[in-house]
């Protein structure tokens, strides 16, 4: 069963397809993702010159291609790179988020890997929180004696956090899972996280030998205690969400009793779409004003 699960998770990342998440969950995450992606794109564009667009596109293509190179792990199994943390170490977190968002979009459209309505959820899990969780340890301990450990920890953390978020979203949406299966999937996440950490560390070290200028500088002299606190906070937050979602019945009952029987879905969808439209209009308006102010 463990191997079965591993094959379905692709060993690594969980791309949630459409139809799995309940309406409140996907609508909320979509509305959260829209302004976040707009902000991240603006920030990434500002951070570099306009050479950035081809560079980020090629880095996205690199992450796709990296999946074709297998890393032997022993006992006949092999793994491959996910890449969110590696992108964060080399391009910085904002640009890495943009690349991961582009990857998720292309995967949803062309490869049927993850849904379109669930794109917001996947972006939040992997491109926003996953990249941030990967960058945090590197930012705090990327220089000095903790460097190798923080690279490993960042890459592992990005996989664990993204996986736990996806799992808890599924559980909140009412996908039933026995406790034993939950334990197995957490174990799978942990194993693939360690694998991602080892692979990322090996790639970063080979990159340091070829072209050390490609890696982002991180500020020197940060205390390792701060690093541990930050890492623990991220880990606790994601695991906490997971355990909170173990009891989704309350949420489900709430939504079941709240909606009237006939045409309840129409009203529900209408409210959701109205909320989306509101956020969308707000983002558009803010974007217009900001760009106008800048051009003046």
């Amino acid at each position, binding site marked *: 069963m463990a191997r079965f699960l591993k094959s379905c998770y692709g060993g690594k990342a969980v791309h949630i397809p459409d139809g799995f998440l309940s309406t409140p969950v996907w609508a909320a995450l979509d509305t959260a993702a829209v302004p976040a992606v707009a902000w991240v794109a603006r920030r990434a564009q500002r951070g570099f010159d306009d050479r950035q667009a081809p*560079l980020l596109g090629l880095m996205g293509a690199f992450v796709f291609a990296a999946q074709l190179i297998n890393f032997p792990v022993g006992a006949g199994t092999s793994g491959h790179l996910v890449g969110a943390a590696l992108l964060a170490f080399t391009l910085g977190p904002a640009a890495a988020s943009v690349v991961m968002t582009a990857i998720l979009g292309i995967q949803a459209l062309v490869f*049927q890997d993850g849904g379109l309505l669930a794109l917001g959820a996947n972006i939040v899990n992997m491109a926003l929180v996953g990249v941030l969780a990967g960058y945090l340890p590197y930012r705090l301990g990327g220089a000095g004696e903790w460097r190798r450990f923080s690279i490993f920890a960042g890459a592992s953390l990005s996989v664990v956090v993204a996986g736990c978020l996806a799992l808890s979203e599924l559980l909140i949406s009412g996908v039933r899972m026995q406790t034993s299966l939950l334990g197995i999937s957490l174990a799978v996440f942990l194993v693939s996280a360690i694998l991602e950490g080892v692979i990322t560390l090996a790639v970063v070290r080979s990159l340091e030998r070829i072209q050390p200028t490609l890696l982002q500088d991180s500020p020197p002299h940060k205390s390792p205690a701060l690093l541990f606190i930050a890492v623990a906070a991220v880990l606790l937050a994601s695991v906490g969400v997971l355990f909170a979602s173990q009891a989704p019945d309350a949420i489900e009952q709430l939504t079941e009793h709240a909606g009237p029987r006939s045409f309840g879905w129409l009203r529900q969808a209408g409210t959701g779409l109205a909320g989306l439209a509101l956020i969308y209009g707000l983002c558009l308006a803010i974007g217009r004003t900001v760009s106008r102010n800048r051009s003046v």
Partner: protein
Amino acid sequence: MRHVILERWSRGESCVHRRDPRAKIVALITFLAVVATAHRALAWLAPGLLLLLLAGLVLAKLPLTGALVRAALVVPFTGVFALICWFAGEPALGLRLLAKSYLSALAVIWVVATTPLPALLNGFEMTGVPRFLLVVCQFLYRYLFVISEEAQHMSKAAAARGTAARNWTAPGPSFRAAAGALGVLFARSYARAGDIHRAMLARGFDGRFLQLHSENFRPADTAFALVASLAPVAVRLTVERVVG
């Protein structure tokens, strides 16, 4: 590669191919929302929506079996969760997940197989997605195959030099070889990005891709968007009125 087929289908010629990408995006989002919010009478609703999609595929002159098989790409992931639900004693929930995700994937295929991806991404720009993100997507899609081929060449070359002969007890050397290959691939992609940027600047690239076709939203597009987005809503209302 197996996804090139979508690219070939999208260059076809039919009344669906000719419609504006924005109209198709509106129809797709409506369809997905109708599927995602459905709870009751799914046993009747799912076949109804499937028939609707089949009609769309026929209208677009796409190969039916090819599209249906292609949408089954979601089944491995969904199937595992359906089995989990089955073991948890809720086979109906498992079937619901399977039906919903399959229908959604087929709808996405219907749109992607009738619109070339650059045009589709351009259509998303009109709906307010940041242009920078879409330009990154365009570059990503353009160089996806180039870089993937390079990766395949590298792993083939490495295999020819003996990395494929696995040492079960000590995977260290071939692990390091793979890491080295990825490092080289990374540095090469980085350098290639600079070359591409200079070449595009020399050709007058100003951060946006120009389109050969005009982007006028014609009355036919409006009619198409209306019909194609009202159809799934109508199917759902009818089914729920009759069965529910």
